[in-house]
């Protein structure tokens, strides 16, 4: 007895409509970053949230987990971006308020650790 083929909605679109289509080389990098993040979130949240392969469709619990996972991941990315930018700025300004783990650049006058 053959197993039924996986359920597929007739209008399934596996790629989201991006907010703006890239029209030049500069926007291609941004678009590529968006898609890389999208694929990473898909893989990570799938591995974390989906565990029941007794059915081809998602369970309600899995869907709730996916929503939370996606929001969490995006907030984490935002936080990492903020801290990274701050760290880079401090580094460029000579490490005045740099975190202890950041090595002082050559030529900086102060090497005090906060």
């Amino acid at each position, binding site marked *: 007895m053959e*197993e039924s083929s996986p359920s597929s909605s007739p209008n399934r*679109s*596996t790629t989201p409509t*991006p907010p703006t289509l890239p029209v030049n080389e500069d926007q291609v990098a*941004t678009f590529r970053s968006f898609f*890389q993040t999208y694929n990473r979130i*898909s893989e990570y949240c*799938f591995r974390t949230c989906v565990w029941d392969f007794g059915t081809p469709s998602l369970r309600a619990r899995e869907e709730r987990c996916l929503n939370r996972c996606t929001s969490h991941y995006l907030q984490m*990315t935002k936080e990492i971006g903020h801290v*990274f930018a701050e760290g880079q700025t401090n580094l460029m300004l000579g490490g005045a308020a740099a975190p202890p783990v950041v090595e002082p650049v050559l030529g900086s006058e102060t090497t005090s650790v906060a």
Partner: protein
Amino acid sequence: MKLVQDLEIEMMTDMYARLTNACHKKCVPPKYREPDLQKGESVCIDRCVAKYLDVHEKIGKKLTEISMRDQDFQQRVGAGGGGGLATPS
């Protein structure tokens, strides 16, 4: 337009590789008693692919919704994916 198509092919290829990796980890235990795929593994893979595509679609819709809502979302996502060097136009 060709740029968009090439980019989409690249992203679909990446998605396919991740899907393969994820379903292999979920459905195929690292104990190989025989060379052929077992019936249970085959069914699991079948369902795993369906679910992954479902997940991909749902996350895509959520991201689109968030990006419509948040104007500087793309800047953060681009910064997070590109190491903070991409600047929005």
